[in-house]
């Protein structure tokens, strides 16, 4: 495919004097997992926020399959096929797990201005939502309010919600965080297959997962991409080892 799924060019974002994003160029191609790693505070979540449309960049451009989406807000970008998960799970807490996913199905189908039919009897919402819950292994907890789910279950629900959007691009902000070793391993297997559905920009601190999954890795430090390449290239890059993996240059 000629156009990358996602193209970020010359992106800049400052919080006061702090340059959280400092001239970032990044591409995500169809069928790939592109991992974004970097130390705490490097600006990974800030970058995800700008791509998802919740944060406005000061400068630069974001393209989705060639189309300039920089001027669109978060809901506009979601409608074009950007699905993001939040580093800190961000769900509708009073709603059950099922209803959280149903809301995503509803958002995807753009049918929020219907006033009559009871959503719980609406199979066009319930069935796809159950399917998404099933895929992440959360079916048994479908009727539990999101606020009463465990931390790991909330992370799974975030993924189910993203799946239900049927997106063209996934932005996953630390999906493994706090999942435990078993959870991480299961999710790694899941993401491995998910890239067939849509490419994934994956922010992750879990290096085992990153090295197992990523087709490409970019390293972000102080808002700049200091290195970008295959897993092997990144592993052996002396700058990366020093700046991020915390080892002295060989």
């Amino acid at each position, binding site marked *: 495919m000629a156009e990358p799924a996602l193209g970020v060019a010359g992106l800049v974002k400052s919080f006061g004097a702090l340059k959280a994003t400092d001239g970032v160029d990044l591409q995500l191609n169809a069928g790939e997992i592109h991992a974004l790693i970097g130390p705490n505070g490097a600006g990974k979540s800030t970058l995800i926020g700008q791509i*998802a*449309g*919740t944060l406005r960049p000061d400068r630069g451009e974001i393209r989705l399959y060639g189309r300039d989406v920089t001027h669109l*807000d*978060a*809901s*506009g970008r*979601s*409608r074009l096929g950007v*699905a*993001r998960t*939040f580093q800190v799970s*961000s*769900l*509708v*807490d*009073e*709603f*059950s797990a*099922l*209803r959280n996913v*149903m*809301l*995503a199905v*509803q*958002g*995807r189908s*753009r*049918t*929020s*201005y*219907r*006033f*009559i*039919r*009871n*959503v*719980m*009897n*609406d*199979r066009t*919402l*319930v069935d796809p939502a*159950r399917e998404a819950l099933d895929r992440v292994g959360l079916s048994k907890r479908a*009727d539990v*309010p999101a606020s009463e789910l465990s931390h790991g279950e909330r992370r799974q629900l975030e993924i189910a*919600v993203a799946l239900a*959007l049927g997106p063209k691009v996934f932005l996953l902000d630390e999906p493994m965080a706090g999942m435990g070793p078993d959870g991480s391993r299961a999710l790694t297997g899941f993401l491995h297959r998910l890239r067939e559905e849509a490419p994934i920009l994956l922010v992750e601190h879990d290096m085992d997962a990153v090295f197992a999954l990523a087709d490409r890795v970019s390293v972000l430090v102080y808002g700049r991409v200091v290195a970008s390449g295959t897993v092997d290239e990144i592993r052996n890059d002396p700058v990366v080892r020093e700046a991020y993996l915390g080892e002295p240059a060989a």
Partner: protein
Amino acid sequence: MGASMPVSREAVVSLTLILALLAGALIAQASGETFYVTLATRIAILALAATGLNLALGLGGLVSFGHAAFFGIGGYACGILAIHAYNGEPMILGLPGTQTMPVIWLAALVASGLVAVAIGALSLRTSGVYFIMITLAFAQMIYYFAISWPAYGGEDGLSIFVRDNFPGVNTLKPLPFFLICFALLAAGLFFFGLVRDSRFGAALQAARQNPVRVAALGMAPFRIRLVAFVLSAMMTGVAGALYVDLNRFVSPSMLSWQMSGELIVLVVLGGTGRLAGPLAGAALYVLFEFLLGGMTERWQFFLGLILLLVVLFARGGVVGLLAGRARHG
């Protein structure tokens, strides 16, 4: 799914409260105590007004401190149409007045809806305390406009002398008029229930809890809230028209900030976001006013005390106490 859901305790509580209001009015009528029929009518009308607010406040989390504007606009729509029909003088644009209730209600719906589009479009860009203050400010502007508008009574308000009519019903008698108000309240509650359980309601309630998530799902919280705000205002507007027919009088006090506060009190007292919350709140409020108002000028003090207890200890209001916590499928 698809299996029939068990009837919730909340549904039972709601139905009981609604039937109790109807039974109360019928019993009062049968025992010749028409004053109590009027009291029940007042409850029905205030409950309808507060059910309108409950759509915005309860489902949407939009703490409008300006809903008296819509109550009053509905009231003035009624008063103005009725007085012109009474004098036979045409209104602006040469339109005739009318004393037919359904036409008046339509006018109240349209007028309050249009004003709500304008107020909502501006105020919904803010949130929290700013939203409260801006809705209050708009309502105050309309209040002062009404005061300084001598054509319709200014500060003194406007009497409409005879109650408006409804085809085939003698509205001058207390019970038929109560039944009209009761029917509209029932319709309002039915509509509230539909909206709450619909896709729109899901989006609205989700936008209250987590607007960032809602936007990430491709929905626009602002537009959803605006639609809810307008629907909410329209319902409160129709209640305003009924209120004027009940009292045969409309005055700027219907537009006052005290009225806005009273509507919020009704909702919170009864149970924010609960179907029958506004009805429970209105019943409690009117009965309190009647029972204690006769004994002491300070009945509002006791009302405040109850409100304080509700806010501190019973977040779900009266309905919460009776039916337990709200369920969300």
